[in-house]
């Protein structure tokens, strides 16, 4: 029904999609898998008209189509359902159904009611047309969105992580409705990280990695097959040879927390001086939340955090920073740097303390030193926006104090090429060696974790599944832990 041929999408030098080919048969449920940054969301946004492809062709039922806007995608029968439904919470269910129509002056309440009844009974949903989506659960709002898309004539339904945040019962209803739709001849594309969902529901699965298709599976397939394709580390463990850990100094005791995507189950951990710890797991499994919680950026529900004997629980981010705890976010421009300011401005902000004026020349020479020491390709007067991802990351690291006690880094090398990645790790490893700092980082690349980390923590569904030193690690165990099978501690 749908065929994508040689799809490319470039963002400057970054290839989000690099010659992707994908076919989805009518009446099938097709899973699209891949780690964060693999390019699956980009691909689906191209298919649903939200972003334009750089090159490539899209065919629907054998005919080439031009999908340059969501409206054109809907006309071609393609609709996308986002994780957070795009509804109007203050309007009634029926009004929501009518408001979504792209054209036409007069509205037909009768037809909308008919559509609502028909699709609800077909798919096993139940709605009160007069209720507000604000009073519905996330699962029910998804169902409403699904009906809205179907009533617009959508034949290819794309679902982005539909089972995140809904109850098991609603998941069953969703799966029933998707199977039913497939039987009626619709094609379903399911973007997901959840192996269970994919193996129990999907007829076919395509795995993406670094913007390319890395594997295709037809029923029957197991989660191990898929994981192997997502993380093809194949056991090439490059053991970090400089592991001389000091004493434990940073402690998390029975910490729990939650974000919109995941609930972190009670976790107790400690980090040692001079240790590099990699956090692995499928996206949204709890590793990012743990980083933020441990760095004092997100709040914990219960438990305690301390550095040495100094308690940090419920203290401000400033208190964490004063204790030598620093966090570098993964989204560099959105959370790390300030758009519109130069490198010098950032240095002035970091180094100003309580003074009213900064000496321009001193700031500039310090910025130049950072640029030199961290091999940043920029001048002190360059806007941070104009820097490449790698240079932004290096600049962020340069802003950290010389001797932090522990660094929490969220995907520090995401989107960077090989050279930039190597440069970042050289800088970090030098720090660890010279100042005895600990580095805790998350990465979607298992290879990277195995190459640079001394110790690996694997998360699944908000729970710590494995805590092992890398040198006695069996890669098979990581796969097991990622898919949710608990491994023994080291």
């Amino acid at each position, binding site marked *: 029904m749908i065929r994508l041929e040689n799809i490319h*999408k*470039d963002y*400057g030098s970054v290839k989000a999609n690099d010659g992707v080919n994908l076919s989805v048969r009518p009446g099938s449920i097709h899973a699209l898998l891949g780690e964060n940054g693999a390019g699956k969301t980009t691909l689906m946004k191209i298919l649903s008209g939200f972003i*334009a*492809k*750089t*090159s490539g062709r899209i065919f629907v039922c054998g005919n080439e189509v031009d999908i340059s806007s969501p409206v054109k995608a809907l006309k071609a029968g393609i609709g996308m359902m986002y994780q957070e439904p795009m509804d109007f919470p203050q309007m009634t269910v029926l009004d929501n159904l009518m408001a979504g129509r792209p054209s036409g002056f007069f509205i037909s309440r009768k037809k909308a009611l008919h559509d609502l009844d028909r699709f609800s009974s077909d798919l096993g949903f139940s709605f009160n047309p007069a209720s507000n989506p604000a009073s519905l659960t996330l699962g029910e709002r998804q169902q409403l969105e699904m009906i809205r898309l179907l009533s617009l004539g959508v034949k290819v339904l794309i679902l982005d992580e539909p089972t995140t945040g809904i109850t098991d019962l609603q998941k069953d209803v969703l799966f029933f409705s998707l199977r039913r739709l497939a039987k009626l001849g619709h094609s379903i594309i399911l973007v997901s990280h959840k192996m269970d969902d994919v193996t129990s529901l999907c007829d076919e699965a395509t795995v993406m990695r670094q913007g390319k298709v890395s594997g295709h599976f037809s029923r029957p397939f197991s989660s191990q097959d898929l994981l192997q394709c997502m993380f093809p580390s194949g056991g090439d463990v490059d053991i970090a040879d400089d592991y001389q850990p000091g004493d434990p100094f940073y402690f998390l005791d029975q910490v729990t927390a939650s974000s919109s995507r995941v609930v972190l189950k009670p976790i107790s951990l400690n980090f040692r001086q001079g240790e590099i710890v990699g956090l692995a797991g499928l996206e949204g499994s709890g590793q990012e939340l743990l980083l933020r919680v441990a760095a004092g*950026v997100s709040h914990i529900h219960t438990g305690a955090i301390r550095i040495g004997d100094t308690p940090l629980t419920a203290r401000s*981010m*400033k208190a964490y*920073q004063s204790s030598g705890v*620093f*966090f*570098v*976010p993964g989204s560099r421009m*959105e*959370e*790390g*740097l*300030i*758009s*519109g*300011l130069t490198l010098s*401005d*950032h240095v*002035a*902000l*970091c180094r*100003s303390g309580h*003074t*009213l*004026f*900064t000496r321009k020349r001193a700031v500039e020479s310090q910025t130049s030193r950072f640029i030199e020491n961290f091999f940043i390709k920029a001048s002190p007067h360059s806007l941070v926006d104009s820097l490449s991802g790698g240079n932004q990351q290096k600049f962020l690291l340069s*802003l950290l104090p010389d001797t932090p006690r522990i660094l929490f880094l969220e995907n520090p090398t995401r989107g960077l090429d090989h050279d930039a990645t190597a440069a970042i790790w050289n800088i970090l490893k030098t720090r660890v060696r010279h100042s005895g700092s600990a580095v805790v980082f998350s990465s979607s690349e298992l290879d990277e974790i195995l190459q640079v980390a001394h110790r690996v923590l694997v998360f699944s569904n908000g729970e710590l599944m494995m805590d092992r030193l890398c040198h006695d690690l069996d890669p098979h165990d990581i796969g097991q832990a990622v898919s949710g099978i608990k491994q023994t501690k080291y």
Partner: protein
Amino acid sequence: MSIKTIGRHLGLPVFHVLMILVLSLFIVSFIVLAAGVSPFTAFSLLYQGSLGSVSHLGHVMKSFFPMTLCAMGLVYTYRISLWNIGIEGQVIVGALSAMVLFRLFPEPQVPSLFFSLGIVSAFLGGMGWAMITGFLKSTCGVNEIFAGLGMNFVSQGLALWLIFGPWKRPGIASMSGTDPIADVYCLIESGPLSISGFELILVFILFIFTWILIRKSIVGLKLHASGSNPFASRLLGLQPTLSIHLALAVCGGFAGLAGLFQVSGVYHRLIPSISSNYGYLAILVVLLSGFDIRIVPIISFFFSCLLVGSIQLPMMLQIDSSLSGVVQGIVVMVYLVYMGIARHLNSRIRKPVYE
């Protein structure tokens, strides 16, 4: 120095400023024509009424001082991306706070000391009023626009209650306001323009102060950073919440001083419309100046000329004096549309082409 260089120094190219003015006058001309009056006559009266004589220029300056104070205050809040709509109420509360002191000590032993206390009281009044908005925003997450709007209603109600209640003139309570304040609290006007030297000097000092603080000190950079990206600012060791309070406090203080100018320099009493809408007008001034402190006095002067010049229109041409408001509104609308189109064209030109 070429005209383009001057424009660049002013922040907005002169060509754009001229285009905006010409387009605005063009639209206003149609409106005036529709009212049956020659646009040339109307514009010439506006000019005569504002810059046509020394005494008219003096009136312009009396309007210029409080409006510029408010606009300078708003530069702080805009720097941190806050819309301080509540500035109108902060002017009123500044005036009320000064009035409290002036009424408590109608015959002060040391007038200069008590007048100085009046200045402090007005500043603190405006500041405190603004900080309520800051508190609501930082602790309860209330949007500053809604909080400020609500506070404006409260302050206006408070002024009316005082005028018609506790502070009403013996025997009468009217829209004409309270009893006049003691002469020692009224600003002395001098020179050919008959303006207050105190107002002139204070506005000048605060202009230089704001210029240095916003453009030359780390404070301006901190406000900008905290407004642009609060999360990143926290990671860089800044305190965005503190910056919000600081910006609002200074802005409210400046607005409070504008309230004092209105009481001591213009009306010499509290009247219901004590703010003369200078708070709202200052929002337009700052918007037109592109949030650039250096342009603020120029735009503020232009608006003051329009305000004062339009007073003659009803007498001479039977056009309502609200024409000045129409002109101001149209200038702002043209500015927004013009800059919007310019931005759109710019982004289209710069947009990377992938296909």
